């Protein structure tokens, strides 16, 4: 079994998580993600695009947990991002599990939707597709470097109902309170669920990273929550496995916003796990058990944590 370079802090974390198989985790991190993508129904009917791909020799099969999503089994291993279907915006290359948060959010045509940490735009384009270019999507990111790819991906996807903003995500909870029907809060994290994309995340990981980022994550989730109308929904997601960036953040939201409640959501055909009830002496709110997570070796994809939260009438 090949191994990747792992920091002492990451090894200590893995050994502290009661439901992690450390060997399987480390092995999964050496395996590339499958080639998965969504087809763009904003441009052409799904069956037309799939036929177009098959005419080009692609073998594709549906993914059960996301709409318009496929796995490619191609004989030619040209880079997917350099193919005609990609460049004309017929497909969007996206990790298989990374499609789940938007499925949990389930945006509808005509709604007002906020994507708080939107760059580079995978989930924004997925949201826009489900909204069918109706209603409004505000795609925000705080990074000047990442805003260009976001704009370019929304363009390639043919999105006409979007506004792209470059703001600290905390702006929306303060200045646009109760303005959105749904909000996606896919926050910056320690990325320990996607180490197969960048081994440096495992090698350079330290507890300090989580300590810094979890405060930001909580403030972003509070902002997304406050920006949502009563009765609206917020999805909080990360691509990490750390309980302080996942269970703790949701638990803190529940303690600070009394109207918040977690809704059950289980993606079809995906192996998911219950979150931890406690970790390292910290006991989490029992509602957190309704969230779910998956480890990278569960589905041959990324590790993810997803919470679907409904905003109540009282705060």
């Amino acid at each position, binding site marked *: 079994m090949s191994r990747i370079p792992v920091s002492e802090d990451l090894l200590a974390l893995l050994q502290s998580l009661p439901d992690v198989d450390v060997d399987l985790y480390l092995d999964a991190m050496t395996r590339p993600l499958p080639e998965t993508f969504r087809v763009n129904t904003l441009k*052409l009917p799904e069956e037309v695009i799939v036929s177009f791909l098959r005419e080009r020799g692609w073998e594709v099969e549906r993914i059960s947990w996301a709409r318009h999503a496929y796995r490619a089994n191609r004989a030619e291993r040209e880079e997917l991002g350099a193919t*005609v279907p990609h*460049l004309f915006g017929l497909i969007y290359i996206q990790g298989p599990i990374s499609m789940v948060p938007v499925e949990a959010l389930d945006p509808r045509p005509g709604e007002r939707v906020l994507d708080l940490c939107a760059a580079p735009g995978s989930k924004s384009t997925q949201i826009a597709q489900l909204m069918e270019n*109706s209603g409004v999507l505000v795609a925000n990111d705080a990074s000047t470097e990442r805003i260009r790819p976001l704009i370019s991906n929304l363009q*390639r996807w043919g999105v006409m*109902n*979007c*506004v792209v903003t470059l703001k600290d995500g905390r702006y929306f909870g303060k200045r646009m309170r109760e303005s959105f029907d749904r909000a996606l809060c896919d926050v910056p994290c320690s990325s320990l669920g996607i180490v197969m994309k960048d081994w440096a995340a495992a090698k350079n990981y330290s507890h300090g990273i989580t300590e810094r980022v979890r405060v930001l994550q909580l403030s972003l989730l509070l902002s997304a929550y406050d920006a949502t109308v009563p009765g609206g929904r917020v999805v909080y997601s990360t691509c990490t496995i750390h309980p302080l960036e996942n269970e703790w953040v949701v638990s803190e939201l529940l303690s600070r916003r009394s109207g918040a409640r977690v809704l059950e959501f289980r993606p079809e055909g995906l192996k998911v796990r219950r979150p931890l009830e406690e970790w390292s002496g910290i006991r989490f709110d029992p509602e957190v058990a309704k969230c779910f997570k998956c480890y990278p070796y569960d589905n041959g994809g990324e590790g993810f944590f997803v919470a679907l939260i409904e905003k109540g009438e009282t705060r």
Partner: protein
Amino acid sequence: MKVLDRSDRKALLEELEREFGIDEIPQDLVLVEASEGKVRAVTREAYETAHRIGKVEALGLYVLKRTKFGLYLSVEGSQLFGPRLRRNVVELNAAQLERWASGQPIDISELGADPEASFVVARHGPLFAGSGKVSRDGKVHPQIPKERRTPVE
């Protein structure tokens, strides 16, 4: 960014009609003129939200560009207006689509394009693939942004 008012839209439509036979711009879309002669199309609700937010980085979709040679449709503009195109549309076969996507010029005669036209829109079956400049060198030069071109082998 400047919103195109009724007379601007009328003038734009006349230009679109002249070049591509387009006889209608969807009424529910707001058109805004951005930098370098680019025009973006955005839904009314998104436009109003942007107005409320104030400073925004981008709005809607870049659909066309005005140049000294006339106007041309972006890849997404050609897909938006595709069903309304009546003039200066050329059909690409599979091999030509590959060349087009890599930004390589194709002979006017090979495409059957009107040599008097300024721009043509290319399509491959139901897929509209943006515009090409009809040049005096006897070729049509695809106006595909460099970052969206497929690599040339």
